[in-house]
């Protein structure tokens, strides 16, 4: 699959010069030889450092080669098991009560800064595992920067982190996961829509919560407030941040329940969020990400939506009418200066339909007018507007 590879000035293979063809032949030879070398070593269970280095070379050339990532994990797994089985290995139970080991006897390389602090609580085997994982995470960094959409790199990172949870004491593992969270923060600052990045962030946050809630009160490790704060920061950096708005929405129900928010606190929260997004919409009604969040907020009033955000609680038709009327009024005011913005008319028609469903009234003529504007602005979706006309009985 090639995505977004622009037409280049290089011509097709047949038109390449003899020299270029010879060079390519050589590259293919080297690549196939390297591949063969790695494969044969793994088949022979040669789980040594040279084999490990060869997988690095091959993966740097071709990070999509999933089988080689598997080989790399087999090798690491083997080394971890050996470390743990050796005499230096800790009993698999409580690692935090282990006596401190002398780092100088086992550590030949400089310990990574993010594990240094906790080093004394690790057994020699754990320290070795921690070093190996840290080195591998470092190996992945430039690859991740070069191929931010390569599924297998994210996959391997996530496996490495899961090994810290399995083999290291919670406090040491937590350091790894927290470093990972800050790395993802940096990646999302560069590309705020990276799908893998957001998905991975959810996994990392879950794991940090799990590890840090151990032995504490339930909910003691919850990061929902911090993550909500993070989306606020992202949005203030750039309002047009679709994925951040989405993430914010998914956090809200948990946020409110962790605050044990009363009905009136929920209403205050809802009012604040509406004010935030309305302000943004007045600035740029052409921005889809803002409408997306407005719709999310309004879903709390939609009894027919099984995935409606739980914000207001309880919600009755009186509450629904009041908010739908208020928001309709506010969107009506957006028309001025944005007469050619189809999202405004879509919102008006949607909220008008729902207001009528809960017993409110909106003039049929006014709705017909909105639909007329919408059809003029958005002829691509004429079929949809025709259905809507029928559904609304206009």
């Amino acid at each position: 699959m090639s995505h977004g590879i622009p037409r280049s000035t290089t011509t097709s293979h047949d038109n390449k010069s003899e020299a270029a063809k010879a060079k390519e032949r050589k590259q293919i030879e080297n690549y196939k030889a390297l591949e063969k070398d790695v494969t044969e070593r793994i088949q022979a269970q040669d789980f040594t450092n040279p084999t490990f280095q060869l997988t690095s070379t091959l993966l740097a050339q071709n990070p999509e080669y999933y089988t080689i990532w598997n080989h790399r994990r087999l090798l690491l797994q083997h080394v971890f098991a050996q470390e743990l089985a050796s005499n230096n290995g800790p009993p698999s139970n409580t690692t935090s009560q282990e006596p401190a080991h002398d780092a100088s006897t086992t550590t030949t390389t400089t310990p990574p800064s993010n594990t240094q602090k906790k080093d004394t609580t690790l057994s020699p085997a754990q320290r070795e595992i921690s070093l190996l994982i840290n080195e591998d995470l470092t190996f992945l960094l430039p690859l991740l920067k070069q191929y931010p959409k390569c599924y297998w790199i994210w996959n391997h990172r996530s496996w490495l982190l899961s090994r810290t949870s399995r083999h290291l004491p919670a406090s040491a593992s937590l350091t790894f996961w927290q470093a990972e969270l800050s790395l993802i923060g940096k990646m999302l600052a560069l590309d705020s829509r990276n799908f893998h990045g957001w998905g991975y962030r959810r996994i990392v946050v879950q794991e940090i919560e799990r590890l840090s809630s151990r032995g504490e009160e339930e909910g003691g490790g919850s990061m929902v407030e911090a993550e909500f704060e993070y989306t606020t920061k992202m949005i203030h950096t750039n309002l047009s941040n679709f994925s951040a708005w989405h993430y914010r929405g998914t956090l809200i129900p948990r946020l409110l329940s962790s605050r044990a928010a009363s009905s009136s606190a929920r209403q205050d929260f809802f009012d604040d969020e509406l004010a935030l997004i309305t302000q943004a919409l007045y600035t740029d009604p052409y921005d889809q990400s803002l409408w997306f969040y407005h719709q999310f907020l309004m879903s709390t009033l939609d009894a027919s939506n099984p995935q409606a955000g739980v914000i207001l609680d309880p919600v009755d038709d009186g509450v629904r009418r009041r908010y739908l009327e208020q928001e309709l009024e506010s969107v009506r005011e957006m028309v001025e200066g944005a007469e050619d913005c189809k999202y405004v008319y879509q919102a008006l028609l949607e909220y008008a339909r729902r207001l009528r469903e809960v017993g409110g009234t909106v003039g049929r003529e006014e709705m017909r007018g909105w639909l007329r504007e919408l059809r003029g602005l958005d002829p691509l979706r004429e079929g949809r507007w025709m259905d809507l006309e029928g559904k609304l009985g206009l």
Partner: protein
Amino acid sequence: MSLAAGPGRAGTISDQLPDELRLVVDKHVSYIQSLDTRRDELEYHLTEHLRISGIYWGLTALHLLHHPSALPREGIVAFVLSCLHPNDGFGAAPGHDAHMLYTVSAVQILAMTDGFAELEDSVPNGKRKVAEYIAGLQQPNGTFAGDDWGETDTRFLYGALNALSLLNMLPSQRPNEPPLIDIKAATDHVKSCLNHDGGFGVSPGAESHAGQIFTCLGALSITGELDSFLGESGKDRLGAWLSERQLDDSGGFNGRPMKLVDVCYSWWVGSSLAMIGKLDWIDRERLKGFILRCQDAEEGGMADRPGDMVDVFHTCFGVAGLSLLGCEGVGAVDAA
């Protein structure tokens, strides 16, 4: 088969007027036929980890273009069988590890080429064993892992159901035998990926994405719960989200709001719209024009966008999009 990009490039928007565009069937056929002859290119070798899927994409395009025999059947079936791993899953190429994605491609190819008998010949009880490999990847929460390393994704879940259905091994297809998978847990997982905007994400809470919507609708459609689960208002919400994927400047679809158009979404979005009966909510002619502009009219093949390098993946899904829309020279396709 090579997955290397090129050699051709898709036309640019200004090259031709849309009404002069025609589907260059013969050129696409010879483009797909030429793919396996490119072993002297490095890119051919760098894409070996996708080989079996590449064959599936090429073969699908050929079937839709009414040239199902343009690739040699015997060679294809033999290649597929050579990808079978000792654990009864398929890898992307001989020697590559087994993975759900390539096992699904293998099963799809064997179904298309009537090759299940050969599978049984080379491995006694082969269909059953492959089905057991797939079933073995189901997780306690209903979702499916891609391989023994455990990463899960709704793509794998849909692939599993799709392949089991082709193998005739779904619980509903064998009512008198113990079920190989927990179909209810799988369906429940799909349902938990639904978002307030009507779309589905890769896992619960993940942003809606056209590719994931396709896989979730496909899964629900296989289990027969698509209509009952979504209901009218659910279909309206999802139809609205999907129809907004068509962009006015090009007529093509993107996969998420505020992203670039890409010809492969002609299929992911288009077939999703078809599955919920809302293909009329977009402008078919504009979409068709976009797909045709992604062709390389001289050397065959389609690119993600006009002006980019062609490849077999986009050729397959561009052609499948045309098939959905009804286009001369292209056969009909089943949306799921």
